[in-house]
């Protein structure tokens, strides 16, 4: 890998911002993904991404700009996450069922909210669905840094108890672990990371940041701490590599990052079987 391979894209200001956004999201998403994958909640992150569409649409309906709609989407999606948890615990229905209901409802509300906007207000729905890491504004980047820092600190502090509750909620509760509170924490953090991630790769692909590095690390590492460390490395390096590759290949950045992360997953799958 020549020096120019990295230096040329990083000479551009928008690429440096994109690199920071991608690696921050890649690292925080991967750390969160360790518990999402272990708990079999991959569909939850996908569902929350679709719920984000509803939150962004609500923000636009109340007059926010596409960037500032993020600040409406954050509490909206966090509320959807808490509602999914409450319905799951209260009804005994599976997490996938509760997620399926709320994801469809929030997405449908998003479509209705967009329809209620004045016809003169144009909107690039494609940008909302697919994101644009190269066009990250300083405001969104700041939101990403705040959410990523919050996620990392919260997970670091709760790691041991969250791990116990993930292994077996009943045994953890008997050992004094606040299982329900930790589940809410995990759901809300997932919602926050998903919302800021939507600005990077869009509604459709954002859950890949959470699921793929953690799934790859699960195939390779032997301890939970090892899975966490490896997932973060894969998330950060995969995002950076994908972004740089997209620059040289003149390809869609978000999609190239996801393909890079997925390539690592399949390589790990191959290694493990070999």
């Amino acid at each position, binding site marked *: 890998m020549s020096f120019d391979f990295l230096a040329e894209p990083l000479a551009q200001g928008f690429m440096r911002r994109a690199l920071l956004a991608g690696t921050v999201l890649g690292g925080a998403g991967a750390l969160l993904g360790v518990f999402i*994958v272990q708990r*079999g909640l991959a569909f939850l992150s996908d569902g929350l991404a679709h719920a984000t569409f509803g939150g962004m649409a609500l923000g636009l309906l109340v007059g926010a700009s596409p960037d500032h709609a993020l600040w409406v989407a954050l509490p909206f999606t966090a509320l959807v996450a808490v509602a999914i948890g409450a319905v799951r615990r209260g009804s005994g229905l599976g997490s996938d069922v509760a997620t399926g209901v709320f994801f469809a409802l929030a997405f449908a509300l998003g479509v209705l909210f967009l329809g209620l906007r004045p016809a003169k207000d144009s909107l690039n729905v494609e940008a909302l669905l697919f994101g644009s890491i190269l066009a990250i504004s300083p405001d969104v980047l700041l939101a990403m840094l705040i959410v990523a820092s919050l996620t990392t600190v919260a997970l670091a502090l709760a*790691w*041991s108890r969250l791990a*116990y509750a993930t*292994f077996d909620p009943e045994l953890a509760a*008997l050992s004094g672990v606040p299982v329900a509170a930790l589940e809410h924490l995990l759901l809300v953090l997932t919602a926050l990371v998903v919302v800021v991630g939507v600005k990077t790769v869009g509604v459709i692909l954002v859950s890949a940041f959470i699921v793929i590095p953690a799934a790859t690390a*699960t195939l390779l590492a032997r301890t939970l*701490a090892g899975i966490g460390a490896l997932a973060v490395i894969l998330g950060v390096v995969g995002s950076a590599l994908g972004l740089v590759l997209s620059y040289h290949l003149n390809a869609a950045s978000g999609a190239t990052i996801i393909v890079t992360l997925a390539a690592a997953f399949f390589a790990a799958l191959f290694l493990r079987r070999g």
Partner: protein
Amino acid sequence: MSDPAGLALVACDLGVTLGARRVLDGVSLSIRTGEFVCLVGPNGGGKTTFLKVALGLLAPDAGSMQVLGGSPDRARRRIGYLPQRKAFVRDFPATAAELVLANRSGAWPLRIGGRDREQARAALSRVGGEPLLDRPLAGLSGGETQRVFLARALVIEPELLLLDEPTAGVDAKGREEFLELLAEVAARDDLTAVLVTHHLAAVQRLADRVAYLDGRLLAWGPPQEALGGLEARGAFQTGDHERPVLCEED
């Protein structure tokens, strides 16, 4: 510290309804400190529900239960609990040592230092499971898994041990070995224990007293007495069992 009256568990007219079903109704019994009690009865008879009330995981809607002289919630950290054999998510990278230490500290160990490792080793050696120390749980047999879970329960030096069908799903050889181990540990450590089981061999080998639960407490007493009538009568009859004195005081 157990109850001054020497009673580890006292249930008084205990009633639990789950959904529309009355799972336990009017159950009264007391378990003395140092006693090994077996709970038997048909599936759905309320045996596991009884344990969950004792653990503070379920609240009764009638009557009361005192555990180790107080409410089940307060006694929780003094109770060792061995659940039915767990179906593990194979991806969760848990080792025997981590599981044992998690119960001691109330948190999953991030890394295991030398002192922690020795404590896990000591707990596992009490149940003959020392070679399992670094083994992943996902790779253990049913009998080995329950051996590790017994070490997990014992590591907190419990004053009361609750075991919920620990040999369910374990093959015959594993079940025999586990019962032998349990008998050995119970005798050596003078355990106060409640074992839910379907196996007569377990009752005969371990029980000081037996409770037959089918929603209500249908028989209660020493094994010969409580189980003897079963074959003669074809089924347990409502027992005119002695109501714990502490219930009258309430």
